[in-house]
């Protein structure tokens, strides 16, 4: 009996972790810590206004931009790649090893990102959201992302399992970044476009990354877990399919907001489109929660804190984003730190940390992160959400500026987030090391088992 068989669980998910995924996770966690550390340093400057006041490249704006860039390109995208590759490899039940082409891509990605961050320190930022990297670095990231994802896209395209919808989500999640970054970078840096349209490009790009790619990825992982669970009965793939198309058709149109200088029908359409992903998520989560709450112990993976955490977080983030986009709220919430807070803490801090725990399923075959760990992240994120709501209200009352009380809360939030996420990273990393990367079963072994059965 192999180790893999020993660890087989009632969930049907067997331990499996390709080295390439560990490589991606390690890189992602490194950038997460860098991003949070630099962001924390930036927040300190709000309290100690003379801190590093003599050093030009350590001003608040640059530090904040570096922090966002590290979180988006270093953590978020590498985490998405890792999650998708893990699920794809598991679907194919193959042993991809290190995946040399993809590994070269990951290595080059991290080198390029380091260069890009240094460039931000030198050149500053024009405030184009998530597009502070130079054109050449962005192009380089697109090319390296193709190295990372194309081998796995090929596997997904060649899979002939018509009964699963998860591969569709994974396929789109793998391809969203190159599909939007290539035209986005081209039009922004080399197509001669000037004026407010450049801001439209960055708004569209950042919105797509956060409110389309991340939900697609997380929903893909959730559906993957459902479909991998042999005990799930009566699961219809029509709802996930409809949700996927709902997000695809509407999710790419968002980004602008009421009062954006473009105005007119374009603005109205873009604002309205943020409801598409929200509706898409609601539909699919009704199915998932229905499955998770059947009181049937066989759905052990589905009926866990981590899954509910992720599912609830996605719904909450997308719903709040949609509600805040309404014209009656836009005057108060627009341009405050509400939306950046929503993006940074719910999607980065909480949901992708939840994805790390899902990866633990692959490593240890269970889904039981410690209660203290869950509580620290849950508590930290709730404080964040509350503080940003307070900030939005108080900021509105004081002319859309943060006030001293809001700052105190934000300071506590920063400390809580950094501590909780650092603890989570360490725990997840330790879990990964303990997992010992058990070898996956080959298809031939599977077939022989089936034959014996």
């Amino acid at each position: 009996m192999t180790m893999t068989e020993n660890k087989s669980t009632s969930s049907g998910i067997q331990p499996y972790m390709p080295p390439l995924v560990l490589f991606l996770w390690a890189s992602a966690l490194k950038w997460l810590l860098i991003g949070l550390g630099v962001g924390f340093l930036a927040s300190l400057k709000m309290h100690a206004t003379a801190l590093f006041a003599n050093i030009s490249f350590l001003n608040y704006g640059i530090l904040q931009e570096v922090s966002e860039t590290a979180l988006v390109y270093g953590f978020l995208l590498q985490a998405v790649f890792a999650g998708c590759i893990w699920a794809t490899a598991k679907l194919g039940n193959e042993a991809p090893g290190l995946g040399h082409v993809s590994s070269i891509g990951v290595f080059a990605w991290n080198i390029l990102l380091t260069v890009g961050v240094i460039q931000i320190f030198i050149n500053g930022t024009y405030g184009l959201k998530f597009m502070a990297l130079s054109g050449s670095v962005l192009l380089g990231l697109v090319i390296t992302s193709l190295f990372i994802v194309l081998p796995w896209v090929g596997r997904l395209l060649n899979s002939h399992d018509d009964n699963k919808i998860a591969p569709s989500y994974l396929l789109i999640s793998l391809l969203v970044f190159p599909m939007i970054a290539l035209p986005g970078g081209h039009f922004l840096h080399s197509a001669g476009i000037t004026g407010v349209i450049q801001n439209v490009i960055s708004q569209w790009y950042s919105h797509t990354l956060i409110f389309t790619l991340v939900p697609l990825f997380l929903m893909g992982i959730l559906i993957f877990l459902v479909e991998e669970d042999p005990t799930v009965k009566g699961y219809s793939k029509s709802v996930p399919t409809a949700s996927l198309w709902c997000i695809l058709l509407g999710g790419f149109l968002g980004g602008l907001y009421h009062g954006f200088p473009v105005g007119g029908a374009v603005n109205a359409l873009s604002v309205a489109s943020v409801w598409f992903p929200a509706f898409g998520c609601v539909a699919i989560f009704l199915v998932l929660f229905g499955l998770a709450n059947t009181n049937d112990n066989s759905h052990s993976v589905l009926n866990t804190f981590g899954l509910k955490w992720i599912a609830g977080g996605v719904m909450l983030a997308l719903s709040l984003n949609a509600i805040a986009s309404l014209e009656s709220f836009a005057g108060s919430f627009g341009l405050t730190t509400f939306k950046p807070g929503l993006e940074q803490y719910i999607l980065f801090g909480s949901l992708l940390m939840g994805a790390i725990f899902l990866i633990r399923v692959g490593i240890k075959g269970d889904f039981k992160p410690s209660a203290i760990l869950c509580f620290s992240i849950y508590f930290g994120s709730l404080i964040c959400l509350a503080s940003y709501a307070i900030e939005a209200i108080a900021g509105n009352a004081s002319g859309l500026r943060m006030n001293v009380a809001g700052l105190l809360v934000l300071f506590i939030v920063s400390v809580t987030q950094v501590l909780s996420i650092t603890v989570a990273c360490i725990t997840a990393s330790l879990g990964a090391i303990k997992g010992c990367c058990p070898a996956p079963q080959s298809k031939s072994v599977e077939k022989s088992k089936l034959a014996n059965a």
Partner: protein
Amino acid sequence: MNHPFVLLIGAILSIGLSWNTLIVNPQKHFGQLTTQDEIPKVLNGQQKQGRQVYAESGCVKCHTQQVRYFEQDSKYGPRFTVANDFAGQDKPLLGSHRIGPDLSNLGNNGKYTGGDGRMNLYKTLFHAKESQVMEGSSLASLMPRHYFLFDKVELSSLAPDNEYSELARELGETAGLEEGHGYIPSYRAEVLADYLMSLKLDQSLFVAPIQESSEE
């Protein structure tokens, strides 16, 4: 996976549709604006250099340059901003959220106009917390200090009629320098001030007329 190529084509079409709606069509309209049209801002050389300093200093992460049509924004300018305000600019500094006040109309702010206006601006850049950023606010500013935009000097080296003599002494005291030392604005601070003082929403446009109630 059912029909993967249908899915891929659908995704590409969806992105193409969004590009056409959000980028291509607006670009056809706003990208063709020329100097014959209503374009309020044309920066001179120093102001362009100041704009570069503004970017290098990361100001855009806290300050917006967009006045929306909401009541909350009416205090920032006599009219809302439109695409014409940024026509021809490379990477407009709109900003995406406000930690500090909007700067679209800073050049018309009473504190920064008149004889002491420029000196007040330097004081704000140096120690905004003490000087208060905008009038009418009871809150202390959170703006980090920008010592790197100033040069440390010995006060005795400044000529008696130097325009920065008084400012240098005051800034030196604020920074806690030893007796006889102070700070004067560097060239970067001067061009940044040029740029900031050029930010005005004082041209009434057909698409965004100045509101009379705000003018009062």
